[in-house]
């Protein structure tokens, strides 16, 4: 009974758009041709599956997801270990480290696009020149990598904070005992720290997966998916079809596929997190 409002509203939130999307996906619905809503069956699906952009978009989505998770987990653990023990200014360092997480994606994207990655005036270009290299035109030459850097910058603080919290709950006597027994730093890490962090790694992976499957603002404000489809992910492809191509039918078919992808990811998560969360 108490569940009703939450389940009900979420159900509506999901089912109404889903039903409409289903309907749109089997009709011919182009915003440039009003009134023409003929039933076309699976035509829209055939169109986007054979569209070469589609494969690229799936690959880009997975690349973005995988590399950001990898970067944030690995660097997150290392940085968390670095700042875990007390040192002068620890509080300020923590505040500095968490800040990027609160920067809104649109600001993040513009900041990196213009001030960091601009090939002439940008900070990175200056650094490249300072060490004697030719500056890179990030957004044109490495569009997907650029997006990955921006997104990773935003989510690294999140991972760091979760790992710091987890490390602080570690049993110090256990570590002390291991050190007494002559365990090397690597052994301590491998057999004590890493198992302790397992749960928080699962949490980081889960949350990031939820948010990274649908990265949008960083792409639309910087590369607009380009050049070509080089940095188009599924979310941006649907957007391109629907609002730039005016083809609601194809966009809806693609959206249904995205829903499917989300469910596959969810099933994967149930296995991953279910194991770690059962108490």
């Amino acid at each position, binding site marked *: 009974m*108490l569940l009703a409002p939450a389940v009900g509203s979420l159900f509506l939130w999901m089912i109404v758009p889903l039903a409409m999307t289903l309907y749109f996906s089997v009709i011919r619905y182009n915003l440039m041709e009003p009134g023409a809503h003929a039933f076309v069956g699976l035509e829209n699906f055939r169109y986007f599956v054979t569209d070469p952009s589609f494969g690229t978009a799936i690959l880009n989505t997975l690349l973005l997801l995988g590399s950001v998770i990898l970067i944030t987990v690995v660097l997150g653990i290392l940085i968390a270990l670095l700042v875990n023990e007390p*040192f002068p200014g620890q509080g300020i360092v923590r*505040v500095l480290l968490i800040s990027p997480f609160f920067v809104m994606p649109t600001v993040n994207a513009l900041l990196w696009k213009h*001030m960091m990655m601009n090939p002439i005036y940008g900070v990175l270009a200056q650094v490249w020149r300072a060490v004697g290299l030719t500056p890179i035109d990030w957004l044109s030459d490495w569009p997907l990598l650029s997006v990955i850097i921006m997104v990773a910058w935003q989510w690294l603080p999140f991972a760091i904070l979760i790992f710091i919290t987890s490390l602080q709950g570690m049993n110090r006597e256990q570590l002390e005992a291991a050190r007494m027994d002559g365990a090397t730093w690597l052994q301590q890490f491998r057999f004590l720290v890493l198992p302790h962090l397992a749960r928080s790694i699962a949490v980081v992976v889960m949350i990031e997966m939820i948010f990274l499957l649908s990265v949008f603002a960083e792409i639309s*404000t910087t590369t607009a998916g380009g050049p070509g489809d080089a940095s188009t992910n599924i*979310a941006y492809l649907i957007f391109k079809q629907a609002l730039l191509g005016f083809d609601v039918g194809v966009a809806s078919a693609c959206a249904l596929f995205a829903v499917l992808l989300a469910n596959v990811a969810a099933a994967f998560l149930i296995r991953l997190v279910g194991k770690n969360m059962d108490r």
Partner: protein
Amino acid sequence: MDSTSETGIKIALAIRSVAAWLVALLLFFPILFMLLTSFKTELQAIAVPSIWVFAPTLDNYAHVQERSDYLLYAENSFITSVVSTIVGLLIAAPAAYSMAFFPSKRTKGILMWMLSTKMMPAVGALVPVYVLCQSAHLLDTRFALVVVFMLSNLPLMVWMLYSHFKDIPPEILEAARMDGASLLTEFRHVILPLAMGGIASTGLLCLVLAWNEAFWSLNLTAANAGTLAALIASYSSPEGLFWSKLSAASVLAIAPIVVFGWFSQKQLVQGLTFGAVK
């Protein structure tokens, strides 16, 4: 011998502190650079190599206010994020309560299903939601944004509250019930005090997420209900070439939530761990 190992420890600490500071400054650098740029003139902003010492100017901030009504956008951001968070908590709390204390076979399934709705790219629902808002004359209203923000944060809220409620020993609730506490008293006098930290952190996170939300505010609003995220996007080009004005607008957009985040970071992290990190 004692003194040498002591100096060794001191050196190790010094190296670690320096490394930690370097990493922190490196991660913070883009924000710092933007903050500095917002006080430069346009010419100083694109100087190569970058200028670090200059006479600060407030012209850019004046320009932002002149070009668009900053306060209106800030007000929209504030109202939509706060209201959507409060309404969301009111809906999520009872659901989390019943799942945490009266679990059934389907509880885990329902939780996972809720989370999977969150993974669906918002674009998938864009056209239907846009059409619905249009036919209900809700486009460019705060109401529409509140509803959408609330719904998209609801799964996370239920999840987080659920894991915090689960931390409350059921014996305490049973004892309260034995003493004849009604559902409402039980909630107010037992659960609320015990889970206050969890509820607060859930609210904080959703507040941050709603404030930074860009997709829906870009697509569903215009001049009336636009949030700060939408205001910034309007600076993307060609004004993106004017670094210091862009920076001033960006600083104004992120300052409230970043400062807010600094003060609440401890609380926030506790909530984010889903009770999994002890």
